[in-house]
C-alpha cells in the first residue's frame, strides 16, 4: 500500500477514535443533565425557595438547604481563595524551587486528591469534637480545605505561565517585586486565577461526605453558623434514600439546583474574564 494512503487511513482511524471518545463523554453528560431536568423541573416552584423542608406528605421546599449551601460555600470559597492565591503565588514567585517549596507542592498535590471523607473526619476532630457540636463554620472549613489545593495549584500554574520579561519590565521601571506581582502579574493571569476559583467552587458545591461530619444538616431554617446547618448535598442524600416520593422529588430538584448554580457561576465567571481581558 502506498505511504500517503496508509497515512490517510491511520489519520481517519485516529480522528474517528477521538470523535467517538468525545461522543461518549458528551453523551454521559447530556444523559445526566437530561435526567436532572426531567426529574427535577416538575418539582421546581416558588415553594422550593420560600419554605423549609417538609415532613413527609406535606408541602415544603429547600430554603434551609439552599441558604446553608450558599453560606458555607461562600465562606469556604473566600477562605480557599485567600489561602490558595497566596500559597500559589509564593510557590510560583518566591519559594517554589526551595526544598520547602517542593515539600509544599507535594503536600498540596496529595491534598488535591485526598478523599473528601477524610477531610470531613479531620475537621470533625479539630472543630466539631473540641467545641461539642456540629456547626456551619466547621462545614465551611471542610469545604475550604477541599477547594484551597485546587486554587493553589491553578494559581501556581497560571503565574508560571506569565513570561519573565513581564516581571522584568515591571522591575525595570523601578517597582518592587511584590508590587509587580500584585499589579501586573496577577492582572495578566486574571482569567486563569478565576478559572482556579471556579474549579474549586465546582468541586465543593456538591460535596456531601465532609458536610455530614461537620455541619451535619438541619431540618429547620438557620442562618446561624455556630449551629448545625442544612445544605443541598446532605438534604439530597437524606431525601434521595428515603421511602417518600415527595422527598425524592425534592432531592431531584436540589440536584438540579446545584447543577444550574455551577453552570451559571462558570458562565458568568468566564464572561467576566473575557470582558476584562478583551484587548
Amino acid at each position, binding site marked *: 500500500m502506498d505511504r500517503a494512503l496508509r497515512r490517510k487511513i491511520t489519520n481517519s482511524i485516529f480522528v474517528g477514535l477521538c470523535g467517538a471518545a468525545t461522543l461518549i463523554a458528551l453523551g454521559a453528560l447530556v444523559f445526566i443533565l437530561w435526567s436532572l431536568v426531567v426529574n427535577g423541573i416538575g418539582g421546581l416552584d416558588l415553594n422550593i425557595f420560600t419554605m423549609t423542608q417538609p415532613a413527609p406528605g406535606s408541602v415544603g421546599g429547600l430554603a434551609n438547604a439552599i441558604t446553608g449551601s450558599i453560606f458555607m460555600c461562600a465562606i469556604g470559597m473566600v477562605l480557599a481563595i485567600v489561602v490558595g492565591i497566596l500559597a500559589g503565588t509564593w510557590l510560583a514567585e518566591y519559594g517554589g524551587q526551595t526544598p520547602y517549596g517542593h515539600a509544599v507542592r507535594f503536600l498540596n498535590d496529595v491534598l488535591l486528591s485526598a478523599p473528601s471523607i477524610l477531610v470531613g473526619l479531620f475537621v470533625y476532630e479539630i472543630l466539631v469534637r473540641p467545641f461539642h457540636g456540629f456547626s456551619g463554620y466547621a462545614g465551611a472549613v471542610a469545604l475550604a480545605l477541599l477547594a484551597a489545593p485546587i486554587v493553589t495549584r491553578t494559581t501556581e500554574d497560571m503565574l508560571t505561565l506569565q*513570561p519573565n*520579561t*513581564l*516581571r*522584568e*519590565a*515591571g*522591575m*525595570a*521601571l*523601578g*517597582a*518592587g*517585586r511584590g*508590587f509587580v506581582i500584585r*499589579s*501586573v502579574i496577577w*492582572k*495578566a493571569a*486574571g482569567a486563569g486565577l478565576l478559572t482556579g476559583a471556579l474549579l474549586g467552587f465546582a468541586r465543593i458545591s456538591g460535596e456531601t461526605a465532609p458536610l455530614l461530619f461537620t455541619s451535619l444538616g438541619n431540618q429547620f431554617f438557620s442562618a446561624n453558623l455556630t449551629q448545625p446547618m442544612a445544605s443541598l448535598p446532605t438534604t439530597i442524600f437524606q431525601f434521595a434514600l428515603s421511602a417518600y416520593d415527595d422527598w425524592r422529588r425534592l432531592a431531584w430538584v436540589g440536584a438540579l439546583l446545584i447543577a444550574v448554580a455551577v453552570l451559571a457561576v462558570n458562565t458568568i465567571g468566564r464572561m467576566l474574564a473575557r470582558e476584562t*481581558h*478583551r*484587548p
Partner: protein
Amino acid sequence: MNDVAPASMISASTDAPIMHVPPADTLVLEARKLDFFYGKNQSLFGVDLPIERNKITALIGPSGCGKSTLLRALNKIYDLYPGQQATGRILLDGKDILSDRGSVARLRARDGDVQIDPANLDVSALRARIGMVFQKPTPFPMSIYDNVAFGVRLYHKKSKAEMDQIVERSLRRAALWDEVKDKLSSSGLGLSGGQQQRLCVARGIAVEPEVLLLDEPASALDPVSTAKLEETLMELRNDFSIVIVTHNLQQAARISDHTGFMFLGKMIEFRPTAELFERPQSTRTRDYVTGRFG
C-alpha cells in the same frame, strides 16, 4: 556548523581591546573591567563600556557574545535570578552602583584594594534612572494610559492634570500619540507589535531616566515599525542616553554614534560608529561587519 567561528578568531581573543573612549566628563554610565557569571559559567571577561551622554551606543556581535548580558548588568536586572553575579565597576555619573558588600568583596578579591565611591541607590531607584525596553514588547495588561503612568505613579504623586500631561508628552516623544490619543483607556494589549514596542518606550521614558537600555527592540517588528522606532530613538537622543543591543548591523550603522563589537564575552572594538564600520581595526570586527561570519 556555520555558526562556529573559525579557530583563528578564537586564538586571537587574548588581544587587548581597541577602545576609543570619549572624554570622561561626557560619560553618563560606564562599565569597567566587568566580569559576569551565570552560576559558575563566566560570560563576560573584563569588559569596558563607556556610554556617552545624549548619544546612541550600539552593541553588536554574534549570538551568545555577551551583549545582552552586558546590557542586563547595567541596570542590575540580573539581580532577580539567584546565581547571576557581576564583578567589576559600573559607574552612573561617576558613582559605583555595584556597591553591595558581595560585589565589593569580589572586586577586591580580584583587583586588590580598589577605592569605590558608592552611589547609595537601592536597586529600584537605580532602575528608575536606567530604563529598559525588551526584545518582545511587554505591555502590561492595563490601559494605554495606565501603562505609561505605571512607573511615574511609583515615585510621584501627581494630580490628574499633571499625569495627563506626562502621559501625552511621553506618548508624543515615543511617536505614538497620534495613533492612540482617542483610545487611551483601551488595553495596551490591543495595539500592534510596533505600537506596543513604542508604548514600552513611552512607559520607559515617562519616568525620565538618564539612560535607556534597549535589548534588540526591533527584532520582533516589521520593517515599517522598525523604521518608526529608529526615528523615535534618534529623536530621544536629545533627552536621553541610549544603549541598544542589535543583531541588525545596518540598524547600528544608521542610528548609533558609538558601536561596540563584542565576541566571546569580550569587548573587541569600541569606536565611533562610522569608523568602526568603515575602517575596522580588528580582523574579527572586519570579518563580522563585512558578513564573513556571525
